[in-house]
């Protein structure tokens, strides 16, 4: 089931200058620290001049869609999914 959410979320992001990678490592959601197990896809888009990064990540049997606003550097949880039919 896919649930649309629009809520601020804490994200621990790691930039590795040797591997040239930027990966969310941990998220703080629902009162718990959750380790990110997998990044499904990372993509970007613009709304006007503002660039947004979207990280689709997996943690604790759930898929999270995380949005980073590069103007404010604030993160938003946009979607939660368990992969089951609605």
């Amino acid at each position, binding site marked *: 089931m896919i649930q649309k959410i629009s809520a601020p979320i804490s994200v621990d992001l790691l930039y590795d200058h040797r591997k040239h990678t930027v990966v969310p490592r941990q998220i703080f959601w629902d009162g718990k620290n959750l380790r990110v197990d997998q990044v499904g896809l990372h993509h970007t*888009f613009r709304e006007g001049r503002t660039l947004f990064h979207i990280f689709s990540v997996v943690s604790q049997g759930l898929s999270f869609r995380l949005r980073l606003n590069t103007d404010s550097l604030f993160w938003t949880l946009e979607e939660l999914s368990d*992969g*089951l039919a609605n």
Partner: protein
Amino acid sequence: MGLPIKPDFNSSPSTVMHIDLNSCFATIEQQANPFLRDKPIVVAAYDTPNGCIVAPSVQAKKLGIKVGMRVKDARLLCPDLIVLSPDPDKYRAVHLSLKKILSTYTPTVSPKSIDEFVLDFTGTPGLQRGLMIISQEIKSRIKKEVGDYLTVSIGLGPNRFLAKTASNLHKPNGLDEINKDNYLEIYKGLTLTDLNGIAHQNAIRLNTVGIYTVLDFFRADLRTLRMAFRSVLGYYWFVRLRGWEVDDVEWGVKSFGHSYSLPKFLTKPEDLAPLLSKLVEKVGFRLRGAGFQARGVHLGLLFRDNEYWHRGLSLDQPIFQSQDIYRVAYRLLYRSPYHLPVRNMAVSCFNLSPKTILQLGLFEDRLKKESLVKAIDDINHRWGNFVITPATMVNTNDVICDRISFGR
């Protein structure tokens, strides 16, 4: 028309590569969300029962779910079907990532649609390495650099048509070549409608001149093909099937258009006006962004009972401002003789010309108008579409979403 080539099959090595991302939208969704992988999912224009399916996953296709089906019909085939709404930004991002990888192999990369690319290796060092080796490398780089669940079917051939045909031979994740050594064997295994460009009507045309198989098609002489198509198409097919290039053509932009399927059917022109206004704003923004102006506006209406009415209007003066396009489109809407509930509305601009030199008008300051339109476009570009909108577009915030067309 004389033949500039010998009617033999092109014996040159393959130089064209056709790449097709399998079940594009659905596979990208499965890439983003690993819990959707290996499951029947579809991307539909709307996730409501009447929503039209635009991309079924490989697993959904195996259950008989096809592009164009309604969600409710697909659910009869698969009750646990997962239905997703399109996310155009995601698909565009993957498209650009693929293009970036492909551009490292040849400078001639032509995107044919959101999920298809044609690479021409003529005169590049890639030919020395061998296109089969390069194809394998591209497949593994896509998995490593874009997404491990993404698969592409690659076709190789001496021309674009055969490369595309080869890419369709094995799906998903195929890699095939059609060349001088195997073309007869491959033609033997195909039906006429397997060929890109031969649909039902063209197959009937070919049947009327005694062509029933692809081998018949290949062996037919030029005179027979001209009789079948009654145009230059007969010659093109004669050449195409022999591996010579006739499809390396860039077609110019002929029109800009947008359409919208109404979730709630509306009848009165005044009720349809806000939606028309938003469609026109989108058309106008794209028209001007591409540097064009138009001398014609077209409106198409599909009614609830599947009746279709459309009308175009050619203009004396070229227009580029959304307000002007809207005025013409609204006039057309008012002229519609049917007063039935509308289920789909489409607006387009045609007779395009580059917006380089403005013909100054006697009664209006066109330069002033252009400056105003440019300022509004700049603001919308900087702060996001529809920050500044006409009052006629009121209450249309959540309708007419961003879409990716199937064509180029």
